[in-house]
Every structure is written in structure tokens, then in C-alpha cells.
């Protein structure tokens, strides 16, 4: 173990002794992170354009269904969970049905933007012109405008107005029948009449412009200026891109070490091949983590968020770095020259990064590109970062992404270790 550490430290010392490496590790990524972060912040595309909202309907009536439909119409950025969950499980529900307890927990931890609970008796209350509470849970400050709350209010206002109209109409009807001495209407006819009035008034209210309009740029209102959101995208994005540059660059170094016979000298030492390989893997893993830390430090200084689960964030970083390290070792045996290695590093980094959403969020690309993007490990890392940073997710939320990255790493390592060229 001590020998492995000695080799890792020595290789890091050599890496840092080369000025060109410092430019690649420090200067360029830092500049890019800032530039991309600011630009994305300016165009307001920094964050997810969809908001995850849990909705529990304990009423299950036609009227509660109308409320839900209204809510969708009021703000198409809302993804109502579990009703509107997509194939990618945007709701992060997994297989479990949504329970009140877990939904409250999700809202409290910020993994969802809000939880809306429609109580049983909602329809009855509306019809009876009674008071009823819709429970709304959210992390965001109730004094600050929240897109979800605004949408809900607008919808409820309409429902309320419609219900007043119905109430008035009902009273009118009763008075009319009493005054004209007509036989009282049977209950069924009366209810049908009132419902049609309710729906008609809903309709009319809906056709009016809603009192509040939702804008994407307001997606994250945590009292910070809009541009800092850009770093939530550029930090993980540029971090992952430069992890690829730095770690994949190891292909050329491994080749050089065999050419200059320093690898062979290591093998003439009383060391096992496994120890040498472990040390070399350790070197590139360490460099990758250093690269993430550099970019994240710059992001932090510029206002990037890190979510609320640092160990989970570290785990995602480590899984991605390990995956790229494995890719490096899987490709290294096929490299014939340093020029070839450099070309491959550029090709891989510059194609896998945008494909995986390192430059801009995958949310804004067409569906098929998003699907295609998931061949890139960057996409899985960015998904996980988004879960942690935007949705305050925890370890369990990013387990699938970590799993995919580690599985890819395992497969690539098997190839790399089997064909590693000692001779």
C-alpha cells in the first residue's frame, strides 16, 4: 500500500512539474466555467425548465379532476407527480406509490418544488359553498412569489369564483321555485343544472387571462441574482468536461512511460503487477477528483449551489471519475502514438460532453437527442448533479446514476486490465 501511495505521489509531482498541465487543469477550465456560467445565467437557461410537484387527490371527483386539469393548463412547466410522470421517471418515484408522509418529506427536502393535497370532500365543499383547505407544502418562502403557488392560487380563485356563481344560482333557483309556486325540482335535475352553471362559469373565467403568468426565468427564486444559476449548470458541466480532458490524457502518459522505460523500471522493482496497475489507476482517479474540486471551488466562489447532501455529491463525482479512468485504461492499449492519444482525447471529450449535457441542460434538446445523449457517461453524471443541486435530492435519488456509472466503469476496467501492456 505504501508503494502504491509513493507511486501516486511521484506521478502527481511529475504531472504538476509540467507547466502545460497546469494550464489544462487550472486556467482554461476556470475561465470556461465562469464564461459559460455567466452566459447561461444571462439567457436564463440555467436550470430545469420543469418543476416537480407532488399531487395527492383524496377527493377523486369530477371537480377535483377539473382542478388538476386547470393546474396543468395554468403552468405547463409543472410536472404533477405521479399523474404526469414520464418514462424517465422525472418524478423520481421509483416503483413506490406516492404516500403522504414521503411526499411531505420530498417537499421538505426540496426534492419537489411543492406538494399539493386535495382533501376528501373538496367537491362537496365547493358545491355546498363551504370553506375547505387545500394543503400546500413547499420549501420556498411563502412571502416570495413561487410559480407553483401562483398557479395554484389562480386556479383556486377560478374554482372559488365558479363555486360562488353556482351558489348564487342555486339560491336564485330555490327562490324562483318558491316565488312562482312551481313544484320543487327533484334533486337530480337541480344538481345537473347547477353543475352546468359551475362548468360554464369555470370556462368563462379560464378564457380570461390568468392573473399571474409564469416565466421560466423565475424558476428558481431563492433570493439570488439570476446569473448565479448558470453556475449550477456550468460547474458540473465544465467540471465533467475537464475531468475527461485530464483523465483521458493519461493514455498518452501511459504510452510515454512504456516508451521511456520508467514503467519497465517499476516492474524490475519488487512490486507486483497489480500494485503497479492500482497505483496508475489511483493517479488518474486522483487527478480527476482534483479537477472537479478546482472547478467546483470556482463555482462556489461564483455562487453555485451544492445541494444538501455532500456525501452524495462526492459519490457522483467519484463514480464519474472512475468511469472515465476506466475508459482511459480500456483505450490505452490500442494507442500507438502520443499524437493519436491527443486526437482521441479531443474527439471523446468534445463529443461526449455536449451529448451528455455538459454545456447546456439536456432538457432543452429534442427528445431523441436526450435519449441518444445517455450513451455518454456525462449525461448520467449531469442527471445526478441536477438531482442533487436543483432538487436537493439525496443519496437514494442518485443511486441509479451512480449504479450506471459504476457498472460502465467495471466493464471498461475488465477490458483495460486484461489488455494492459506491461511489456
Amino acid at each position, binding site marked *: 500500500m505504501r508503494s502504491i501511495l*509513493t507511486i501516486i505521489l*511521484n506521478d502527481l509531482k511529475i504531472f504538476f512539474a509540467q507547466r502545460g498541465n497546469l494550464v489544462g487543469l487550472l486556467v482554461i477550465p476556470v475561465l470556461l466555467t465562469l464564461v459559460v456560467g455567466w452566459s447561461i445565467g444571462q439567457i436564463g437557461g440555467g436550470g430545469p425548465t420543469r418543476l416537480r410537484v407532488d399531487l395527492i387527490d383524496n377527493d377523486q371527483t369530477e371537480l377535483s379532476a377539473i382542478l388538476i386539469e386547470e393546474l396543468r393548463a395554468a403552468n405547463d412547466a409543472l410536472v404533477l407527480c405521479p399523474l404526469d410522470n414520464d418514462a424517465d421517471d422525472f418524478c423520481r418515484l421509483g416503483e413506490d406509490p406516492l404516500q403522504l408522509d414521503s411526499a411531505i418529506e420530498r417537499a421538505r427536502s426540496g426534492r419537489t418544488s411543492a406538494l399539493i393535497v386535495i382533501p376528501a370532500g373538496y367537491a362537496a365543499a365547493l358545491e355546498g359553498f363551504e370553506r375547505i383547505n387545500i394543503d400546500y407544502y413547499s420549501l420556498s418562502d411563502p412571502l416570495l412569489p413561487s410559480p407553483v403557488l401562483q398557479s395554484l392560487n389562480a386556479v383556486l380563485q377560478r374554482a372559488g369564483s365558479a363555486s360562488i356563481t353556482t351558489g348564487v344560482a342555486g339560491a336564485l333557483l330555490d327562490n324562483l321555485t318558491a316565488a312562482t309556486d312551481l313544484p320543487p325540482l327533484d334533486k337530480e335535475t337541480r344538481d345537473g343544472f347547477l353543475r352546468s352553471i359551475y362548468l360554464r362559469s369555470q370556462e368563462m373565467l379560464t378564457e380570461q387571462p390568468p392573473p399571474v403568468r409564469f416565466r421560466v426565468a423565475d424558476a428558481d427564486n431563492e433570493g439570488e441574482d439570476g446569473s448565479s444559476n448558470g453556475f449550477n449548470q456550468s460547474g458540473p458541466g465544465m467540471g465533467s468536461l475537464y475531468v475527461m480532458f485530464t483523465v483521458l490524457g493519461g493514455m498518452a502518459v501511459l504510452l510515454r512511460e512504456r516508451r*521511456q*522505460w*520508467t514503467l*519497465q523500471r517499476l516492474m*524490475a*522493482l*519488487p512490486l507486483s503487477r497489480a500494485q503497479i496497475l492500482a497505483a496508475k489507476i489511483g493517479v488518474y482517479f486522483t487527478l480527476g477528483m482534483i479537477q472537479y474540486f478546482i472547478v467546483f471551488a470556482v463555482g462556489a466562489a461564483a455562487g453555485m449551489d451544492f445541494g444538501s447532501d455532500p456525501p452524495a455529491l462526492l459519490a457522483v463525482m467519484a463514480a464519474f471519475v472512475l468511469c472515465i479512468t476506466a475508459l482511459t485504461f480500456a483505450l490505452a492499449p490500442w494507442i500507438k502514438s502520443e499524437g493519436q492519444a491527443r486526437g482521441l482525447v479531443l474527439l471523446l471529450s468534445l463529443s461526449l460532453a455536449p451529448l451528455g449535457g455538459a454545456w447546456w441542460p439536456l432538457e432543452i434538446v429534442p427528445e431523441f437527442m436526450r435519449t441518444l445523449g445517455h450513451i455518454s457517461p456525462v449525461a448520467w453524471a449531469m442527471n445526478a448533479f441536477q438531482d442533487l443541486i436543483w432538487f436537493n435530492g439525496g443519496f437514494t435519488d442518485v443511486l441509479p446514476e451512480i449504479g450506471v456509472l459504476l457498472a460502465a466503469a467495471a466493464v471498461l476496467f475488465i477490458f483495460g486490465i486484461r489488455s494492459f501492456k506491461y*511489456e
Partner: protein
Amino acid sequence: MQLMVETRNLRKTYSRPDGSTIEAVKGVDLEIRQGEIFSLLGPNGAGKTTTISMISGLVTPTEGDATIGGFSITTQSMQAKRLMGFVPQEIALYPELSARQNLAFFGRMYGLGGKALSRRVYELLEFVDLADRQKDRIDTFSGGMKRRVNLAAGLLNSPPLIYMDEPTVGIDPQSRRRILDTVKLLRDEQGMTVLYTTHLMEEAEELSDRVGIMDHGEIIAMGTQAELTQQVGEEDRLEFTIGAQEIAEDLVERVQHQTAGVTRILSNPPEQISDDSSESTPARLIIFAKRGRTALPQIIQTLDAADVDIQSVAVREPDLEAVFLALTGRALRD
């Protein structure tokens, strides 16, 4: 006499990218005794580096095994490697690090640390006369200086056995002299066993207690220098450098029949030194003869009569070059 290195039927077959295979070493049996300098002498491509790589654990033999101080290099490689130092043919140092940093790193890998490490590193820098340049990066060193640090790196663990693979390639005569003296010093003052490879007959002659001559992956002769030269008998070697011209078959036959004592004649046509060079090695005529000095006047007369342009002639007594010539029909440097 105790054996330090013993190899049995060492073989290495490489496969080329095009699918063909090359047998770089074809069943080598070596016995290197404790405290001797053993040279592997052979032209480029003979398989010297591959042999050393196998007995130092860099390359897994395709077949066969070797023991170092009794430890098998394939099954007890850790113990075996602790007994040896290794000076590869390449400058196996980190160019970005200083001489001292390089030695300190490899020293640490042998488990040295603290005072003992710095003492050993300084001792070796003094030994190769580079203490004043210890803080300079390797990539600022001359070829000769790099070779000396390369050598020092093989001595860090004070091993009883050291391998040196062509340690004088590409350096100036002064540095070469220094290294050859160092090798002798290691044997004479520290009792080390040295396995030295070279393609230069002079180096093998100066250093070796025993020599193994290697060609095309095989040891074609092995023994002390006296034993080896006896194999070629008492013949002297007459080396004629001649102008660029073909030597006719019948002239060769005439020389052979008309001169008493001539046993064999080799004629090497001129060769281009390299593809992009207009220079070429002069044509040579090599004649083996008993009592060469006596035969010389008669041979010159015959060649003169055939209008051969003789530029120089040398008479050599039996040496390792002659052994190689006799066994392969080629000169070592070809």
C-alpha cells in the same frame, strides 16, 4: 563456485501486429557465477535485451525459467527482484524530475526512507560524480550524465547482482571510460556480480571474466575469452580494406590455393550505412590464415596482380570478433 543466475531453456516469442510471430530468444541456458562480470555479446537484434528483460521479471518467458540466487523469477519474483539492480538500455528516468528526485523515488520504492535514503542517494550521486548537478532536471543533462544517473538508479538497493544493458550506447568516449571503470570497480571492490550486454567486442574483452556470444536469439558460444578464442584455432585474421569493387570468385580461389596456411576467405561488399546516407562502409576482404604475417606478402602480390585497390591491411590475432565471424560468417558490427 556459486551460481548467481541460472537460466533454463528461456524462450520468448513475440507476436507482431500483422499476426506473424518472431522468436526473439530461442532457448537460452546461462550460468552466471557469483562475483564475475559476464558479458552477453551480440549484434543488434540478437535478443540480449529480451533475455535481460526475462531474467529481471519485466517480460514473462514464453517457456523456461530462471533463478536468481536460487529464487525463481516466475514463481518467487519478489525475492528474486530484491537481489538485483537493473540498468536498462533506455534512460529509464523521469525527465521532469531532478537527478535527486529520481533516485529518491526509486530508493523509496525499495523501502528506504529518511536519513538512510538521503545518505544512499548522496553516496550514489558522488559515486557517479554528479553531486553538484543533483538538483537539475534530468532533461537538462547530457547523454553521458543521464547514463550515469541511470546506472546509479540500478544501485540504490545495494544489490549483489546488477544487470547492465548496453550502458554505454550513444555517449562520448570520456563518459564511456568512466562507466567501464565503474563496472570493474563494482566487481573488484564490492564483489558484485555483473551481467553486461554489448555489441562492442572491445568492451566485452576489457570487462568480462566470461562471455556468452549471442546471435539470432541463441547463445552460440560461452566461456572465458581464452576458451572462446581457442575454438577458432590458431588462425590470424587478415583484414583488407579495398576500393569499391567486386572480388571475382576465381580470385578468391586463387588466393586460397596459392598461399600456404589460408583456411577461409570472406568478402563483404560495400554497404550503405543507412538509407538516407551517401556514405558507405568500405568493401572488406577477410582472410583467415595460420601464421598470418608469413602469408601476407604472397597474398598482397596475388591481389596486386589482379588489380585490387588495397587501401589498408591489418593483422589480428584470434579475438572475440574472430569467434563471431567463425561461427556466423558475419562481422559483429554488420
